[in-house]
């Protein structure tokens, strides 16, 4: 199959297009879905193609609109509700947790099911601050009855969106803003990636790195540097924190004996805590070193670029952590890093890569 390179945004848009085309019950809703920017470009052109009943611009009323989505899902439609910032979805936690997550169970399966997708965009933009750049995935991952997916690549962005829309359950679809401009191979046509927890994004024998979303990119960058230093990371793209399937993680840790987790959100009470705990519970003998978690430190997101220097884990952070765990020669690693990251080092800290056109 020849490579078909799309951006993450294009991949999401293609998933919407395919689902809207295939199933008349699918519709998109939310603030901005029918506007000129189309939720970071992911819904552009779809209003024109499918009309305002399929691409439904909504009032600013997150809890109510989520209830509307649930009600219409119970009647057989498949809404995709979008929040341009995950922070807005906090307004809808009542409907998401009390209703969407519980419905099928609390009616013993006799009350129907809730095939909705709630898409929340996480992560940083320019100086967005405390209320426009949170991540919050553990808040969803804690809730039984939800499924939670966090695609890291363009291919999965499409495949998991299609899977989420076709899933008969409420799925929280989390995309990180710093992934939007990344590119990758995206197969043509309809395909659904299985909602499964762990995909080996890069094989390696020394350290297992379990990462989510944008952190997969950082982990892969780190792996490149470390490989040259003779240390092979096995990078696992978690993809779906709930339902959590430990299969590939356990297999990897059994091989490497070492575990590092990297969260997009706050480290404390984060996704990594569940991974580390499950590994520890299943037996310590497999571990050659104490596991380590990376993630955001315990403070809200500041606006100024000067204050985020140590806030977001980056490839560099992963390299440091693995270096300490493996007792690597950090002088040597540092040289490789300087060489490989030369391009990146020229960019300001609040820009993910040169493809980023900013500002928001």
């Amino acid at each position, binding site marked *: 199959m020849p490579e078909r390179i799309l951006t993450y945004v294009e991949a999401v848009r293609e998933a919407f297009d395919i689902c809207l085309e295939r199933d008349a019950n699918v519709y998109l809703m939310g603030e901005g879905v029918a506007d000129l920017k189309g939720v970071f470009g992911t819904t552009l052109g779809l209003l024109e193609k499918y009309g305002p009943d399929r691409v439904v611009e909504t009032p600013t009323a997150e809890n*109510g609109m989520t209830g509307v989505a649930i009600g219409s899902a119970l009647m057989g439609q498949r809404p995709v509700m979008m929040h341009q910032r995950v922070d807005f979805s906090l307004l809808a936690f009542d409907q998401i947790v009390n209703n969407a997550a519980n419905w099928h169970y609390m*009616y013993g399966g006799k009350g129907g099911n809730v095939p909705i997708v709630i898409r929340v965009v996480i992560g940083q933009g320019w100086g967005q601050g405390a209320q426009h750049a949170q991540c919050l995935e553990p808040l969803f991952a804690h809730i039984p009855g939800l499924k939670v997916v966090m695609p890291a690549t363009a291919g999965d962005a499409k495949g998991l969106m299609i899977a989420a829309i076709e899933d008969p359950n409420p799925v929280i679809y989390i995309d990180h803003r710093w992934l939007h401009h990344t590119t990758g191979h995206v197969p043509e046509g309809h395909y659904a990636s299985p909602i499964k927890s762990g995909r080996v994004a890069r094989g390696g024998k020394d350290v297992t790195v379990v990462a989510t979303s944008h952190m997969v990119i950082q982990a892969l960058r780190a792996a490149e540097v470390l490989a040259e230093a003779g240390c092979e990371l096995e990078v696992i793209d978690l993809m779906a924190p709930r339902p959590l399937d430990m299969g590939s993680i356990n297999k990897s840790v059994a091989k490497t004996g070492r575990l590092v987790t990297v969260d997009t959100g706050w480290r404390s009470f984060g996704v990594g805590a569940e991974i580390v705990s499950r590994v520890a519970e299943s037996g310590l003998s497999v571990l050659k070193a104490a596991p380590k978690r990376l993630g955001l430190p315990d403070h809200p997101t500041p606006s100024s670029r000067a204050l985020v220097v140590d806030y977001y884990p980056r490839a560099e952070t992963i390299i440091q952590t693995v270096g300490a765990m493996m007792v690597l020669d950090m002088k040597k690693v540092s040289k490789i890093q300087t060489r490989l990251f030369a391009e990146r080092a020229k960019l300001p800290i609040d820009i993910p890569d040169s493809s980023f056109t900013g500002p928001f």
Partner: protein
Amino acid sequence: MSEEHAREFLERLYRDLLRVRMVEEEIAARYGEKEMRCPVHLSVGQEGAAVGACAALERDDVILSTHRSHAHYLAKGGDLKAMLAEIYGKEAGCCGGRGGSMHLVDAAAGVLGALPIVGGSIPIGVGAAFTFRNQGSSRVSMVFFGDAAVEEGAFHESVNFAAVHKLPVIFVCENNLYSVFTPYAMRQPQRPITDLAGAHGVKVQSGNGNDVLETYRLAREAVQRARAGEGPTFLELATYRWLEHCGPNYDNDLGYRSQEEFESWRANCPVEQHRRLLGKMGLLSDEQEAALREEILGEINAAFDFAKESPLPDAKTAGDHVYA
């Protein structure tokens, strides 16, 4: 409606009122046995609203209810046995024992669900109406809620959206003057509650919820408007809860509402009022009444027997139905 039909209809309304009343009185009578191990919010005194409004619906229309769900469920045609079995926590319950009294459902009868989060089911009902409109269906959605629910933002968000899209939904607010112990005036300013929906550009009506016929007429108009694509209606139905907010007892002795207020509403009993009307019209003799009561009691007793005798769910199945 032919005279014959009209008579049958009036009789059916009475039957439904009486049946709901008798079911709830029986729940109250038996609650002390501590076999119904979940909270129950009884509608005794409020039956007119449920029965009158649901009488305007077809079986494939849907309703949404609240913590106080029995009357709505039964009035819409929900299965009595499944309801009682649910309250008894049994496998045969309408939710297989997972829901309890506050989560009644009967998909076949159009009881989409009941939710104890105040205001929580209002947008769900609007969502159902949204799909009806999208599908070009003539079905309508009716959402029951209490006077406290209009204090929740979700109410306003829902009505606004329903108004913008002219959705086939009827908002039925049973204004029984209290939210648990708290009177209306401590929670909302002096103004008609209908103003709230009116401000969203929605057609509003107030009526006597204890008058089943008046309620029916208002609901029918609202349903017709909805089916005709003329959009949502908000009905405020004045009524009164006789028993405590949650549980089987009278609690007027506690003093949170005056005895006069209580008595005046009791005198205005929805079942009794309609019975008098039928009596005046010569449609209900004492013998007919007695026979009807006996028949209903028979059904109720059989349903309680069913509920009590049917098995509890197997603990091993507790993890089932998390995902569809």
